[in-house]
């Protein structure tokens, strides 16, 4: 159920990101003279101060926001898998090094680190922001994966594979990795949420490329244009809601996966029977 609602939300946004721009066509940055209009038939979600159509921006922004989220989550997950699985499987000095590294990145507060790193970024394109977020965001996944790898590598089927002569890398990727897929999926999804939030935060601070339209940069402009003060709720409400909704969708899917793995977590309908 949760998975379904969550996936529904995600599919909606994914479709919006992929096909929305084709349908709408307009340039999200295109300005016009009817600035600061409330929602109307011409502008479903109203306009910004410079007359940009907010719906168009939301649709295009979905691409950037989700793109950054996905890209950095992919990078972070690859890092996490490499560090977590390899360290966890081989143990020894590699593992010690990896886990100290992981723990360091885990304890260092990531948003300030992102802010500091982004502050130095020469090119604040989508890709570089994604990389910065990924670099600071892989540690949690690596830690979880390492712990899981440690337990999985002790399992008999791994021992059995080793006993039957499989090579380490094949064991890691064919025996252990599939078992960890749900864990990887949850950590991936959590990273996506984190990355979208981080991108929004960065843009909001004006530390990302503001000439590309993302939900975060929309919020930045809304804040800069004092949307709050002039009562232009239609300007700052939609981007934030979209971020929260995507996050909710991802979280729902995540909790759904958790519940499949751990059925106890499900919400239950208590039958009024004598128990």
């Amino acid at each position, binding site marked *: 159920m949760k998975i379904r609602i969550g996936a529904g939300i995600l599919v909606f946004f994914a479709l919006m990101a992929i096909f929305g721009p084709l349908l709408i066509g307009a340039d999200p940055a295109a300005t016009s003279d009817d600035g600061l209009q409330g929602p109307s038939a011409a502008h479903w979600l109203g306009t910004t101060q410079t007359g940009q159509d907010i719906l168009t921006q939301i649709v295009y922004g979905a691409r950037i926001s989700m793109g950054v989220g996905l890209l950095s989550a992919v990078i972070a997950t690859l890092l996490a898998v490499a560090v977590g699985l390899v360290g966890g499987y081989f143990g020894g000095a590699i593992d010690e090094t990896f886990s100290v590294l992981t723990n360091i990145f885990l304890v260092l507060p990531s948003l300030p680190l992102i802010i500091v790193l982004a502050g130095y970024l020469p090119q604040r394109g989508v890709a570089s922001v994604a990389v910065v977020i990924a670099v600071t965001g892989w540690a949690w996944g690596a830690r979880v994966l390492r712990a899981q790898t440690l337990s999985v590598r002790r399992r008999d089927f791994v021992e*059995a594979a080793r006993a*039957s*002569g499989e090579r380490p890398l094949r064991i890691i990727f064919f025996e252990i990795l599939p*078992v960890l897929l749900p864990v990887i999926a949850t950590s991936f999804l959590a990273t996506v949420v984190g990355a979208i939030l981080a991108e929004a935060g960065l843009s909001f601070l004006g530390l990302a490329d503001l000439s590309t339209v993302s939900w975060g940069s929309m919020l930045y402009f809304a804040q800069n244009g004092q949307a709050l003060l002039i009562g232009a709720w239609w300007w700052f409400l939609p981007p934030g809601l979209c971020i929260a909704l995507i996050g909710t969708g991802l979280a729902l899917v995540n909790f759904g996966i958790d519940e499949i793995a751990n059925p106890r977590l499900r919400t239950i309908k208590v039958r009024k029977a004598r128990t």
Partner: protein
Amino acid sequence: MSGEIVLEGRNLTKHFTAARGPRGRFGKRPPVRAVEDVSLALRAGTVTALVGESGCGKSTVARLLAQVYPATSGEVLLRGERVRAHRGAAFRDYRRQVQLIFQDPFASLNPFHRVRYHLARPLRIHRHVRSNAHEQELVAELLERVSLTPVTQFMDKMPHELSGGQRQRVAIARALAVRPLALIADEPVSMLDVSIRLGVLRLLERLADESGLALLYITHDIASARYFAEDITVMYAGRLIESGDGESLTQSPAHPYTKLLLASAPDPGRVTPPETTRHGEPPSLIEPPSGCRFHPRCPVALPVCSERVPGRTELGEGRWTHCWQAEETALTR
């Protein structure tokens, strides 16, 4: 005594140190003296049982024999040759000849792979297959050997679609796929339901008989060892205590611990219920008792028991024990 010695462990000792092994979250542990000076030989076509209570080091012996990890000291010999390599082709060759079967059939198959994959991988790794058709043929043959018929039906099942007994059979088939000389079964049935244990044990027995495999059957159930093994070796707290052929060992145990074990095992057929006294807990392997490790619980302990480790006393007919009492009787005899 049938068959030649296939696999032999000589004076195997294993201490787990902190750096390896599962380290607790909270700092280092002192070394665990899990196995001390264990020698064991497996013969072709013979089932040998290794019996002992939980935590006494049975699995560790099994893993040492299978070279899952290296021994702290002592050596493993395969057909009389010392095993040296721990990686590379030579080691893979060793792996091919000695195979393990695990306790928990629910954990020993990867839930993501089909039965076919589990059987085909070892065949491929060890280059037993020539073509896809050949692979199919060999897999079918393996399934038949472990009585999973009709084979076509089982080939494409996922582990979760199998019952515990069926899984254990798949695990056995996988071990057989590499065509080993020796098979080490670590409590292969203790996780299975009583009613289906028998089938798996019979299968193992048959394999030893028919294929001439050397089989080590590890169990804490001495009664089943009596039924399925020709030789029984009893272990206590990391050391061997007594060994001999199944029937005579169970009927006339020499070591006080074996006696205690036999007396404690539930048996409705017993004529008089055994008298029970407190024996205390099994010892810690981190700081094992000095001398004979059983002496704190032993009803007939001698002063020497706490001082020196008893040597092996041959009792004839292939039986021997490590006990100062037995030593004395042997001397006086």
